[in-house]
């Protein structure tokens, strides 16, 4: 075989190998999610069947109907959990973004002593494991009587989200050239006006994605929520998921259905955010 032909063969083999590798990787990534959706649509008999039934014979929405039909009819208070999750996540996201915007702007635009120390310090508060933080919070909240309230969880989640929000927003403000705001100020804007009319709109998409990221953190959080909530007053969806586990049995189908309900908002929001998220993380951290 001459060199040309063998080189062509190698290229061809490499590209086939590449396609196969890519396909396998994507399968591994997507399979668990698809499996959950599939299970939520199948009757329990088929899920438990031995030997396993691979091709679904029968699909229906019974699990979803049962879930939303309320307590006592095989359902759990999903609507209440959903409402709690939504209220807590949205409120704490809004507060965290306002505070994070102030902090991020300070890091992006001003020089002050001990800047990197402060930044690291803020980040370190995020490293405290949720379960470790839940011990003193549980104690303090019990004293203040704010266990099992929306307020308690919102407060905790604001603190949880501030460090990362600052990191992201700092990155987005760095991408906005300083000269623009300075030009606006020369043209007669106050610093305040320059911020709102020039810098804020330019960093807007980035800030929106920081908000979505904060929202997802609250939406998915479990370690704190499982200790600081007690009842339908404030239980969030991740904690509600445990309602499907009894001592020895688990209602797999019901859990899968709830999982799908939980994942849909997260899925939608992540798709919106994906492009900006990476930009904020890398520009803030690399070009610093």
């Amino acid at each position, binding site marked *: 075989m001459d060199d040309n032909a063998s080189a062509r063969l190698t290229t061809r083999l490499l590209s086939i190998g590449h396609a196969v*590798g890519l396909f396998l990787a994507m399968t591994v990534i997507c399979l668990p999610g698809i499996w959950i959706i599939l299970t939520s649509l199948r009757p329990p008999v088929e899920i438990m069947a031995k030997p396993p039934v691979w091709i679904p014979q029968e699909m229906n929405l019974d699990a979803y109907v049962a879930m939303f039909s309320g307590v006592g009819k095989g359902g759990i208070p999903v609507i209440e959990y959903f409402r709690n999750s939504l209220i807590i996540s949205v409120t704490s996201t809004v507060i965290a973004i306002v505070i994070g915007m102030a902090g991020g702007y300070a890091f992006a635009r001003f020089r002050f002593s001990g800047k990197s120390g402060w930044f690291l310090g803020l980040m370190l508060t995020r490293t405290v494991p*949720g379960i470790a933080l839940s011990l003193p919070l549980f104690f303090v909240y019990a004293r203040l009587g704010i266990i099992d309230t929306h307020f308690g969880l919102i407060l905790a989640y604001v603190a949880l989200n501030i460090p990362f929000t600052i990191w992201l927003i700092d990155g987005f403000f760095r991408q906005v050239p300083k000269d623009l705001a300075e030009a606006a100020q020369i043209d007669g804007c106050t610093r305040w006006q320059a911020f709102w009319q020039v810098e804020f709109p330019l960093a807007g998409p980035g800030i929106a994605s920081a908000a979505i990221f904060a929202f997802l953190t609250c939406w998915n959080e479990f370690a704190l929520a499982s200790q600081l909530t007690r009842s339908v007053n404030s239980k969030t969806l991740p904690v509600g998921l445990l309602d499907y586990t009894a001592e020895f049995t688990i209602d797999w189908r019901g859990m899968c259905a709830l999982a799908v309900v939980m994942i849909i908002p997260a899925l939608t929001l992540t798709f919106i955010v994906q492009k900006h998220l990476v930009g904020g993380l890398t520009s803030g951290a690399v*070009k610093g």
Partner: protein
Amino acid sequence: MKAPRLSAPVLLLTPAVIVLAAVVLVPLALSLYSSFTSFRLTRPASFFNVIWFDNYLSILTNWDFWVAFGRTVLLLTVALNLEMLLGLGLAMLVERATRGQRVLRTLMMFPMMFSPILVGFQFKFMFNDNVGVVNNALQSLGLTDAAIPWLIDGTLAFIAISIAEIWSSTSVFAILILAGLLAMPKEPIEAARVDGCTPWQTFRYVTWPFVMPFAYIAMTIRSLDVARAYDIVKIMTDGGPAGRTELLWTLVGRTAYGDARMGMANAMAYVSILLSIAFTYYFFRKLAAARTQIGAEW
């Protein structure tokens, strides 16, 4: 006399500092204090019973604790390294794809939107010895007849947990490394090829140094949130059976809420906080070093 004018950054950072102090620092100070007491939830008076370092001393001699500690470090080491390698591989696969890169990138983010608790539950279902898809597949393919006790045997459970952890977090690395690969100028690679570098040499001495800071960003982000593994383990095995998959965090939870020994749990929690801080600090330093190293080119 005029009040001293506060500078802008101080004013801007004040709200963040106040909230973090109120919700994180003050409670942590409280838990530091209670780690020096024999505080039990069931006996509130014991909150004032200071026993100094007794809790820490009994941790030092507590074999279960050190096993859990070692297992946590092992899990983090295994998971972070594999996530990094797989993330790098995945990023390079996607970067080389000529068509459908947007779709691939979106698919790649899929695991990121799963709440850790969902990841745990989903893998608990898949690794279930009776109805799980893994055992079903192995049996249907005729590879084994027995139901492999994935979550009951200690070693297998550790592997299952690592797989769940790696599945959920590889995409963080893949996405950031991919961002690095895409941001990289193409000239150095071409120059290296013209100069006769092998593909491996091109990767090792041209691509990797450039992508490294991005990998460290991913590492830092991950290390901020390593305790997420708690959710996964909590739901997959809850530290069981008989403590064979106990991690530091599940042990803290069990000591605090199961046994109501708050003082002891707080002492353990402090060890886990120090562990997290050590990880984060280490990667922050690495990030800073990598940044100055390539600072000249940027």
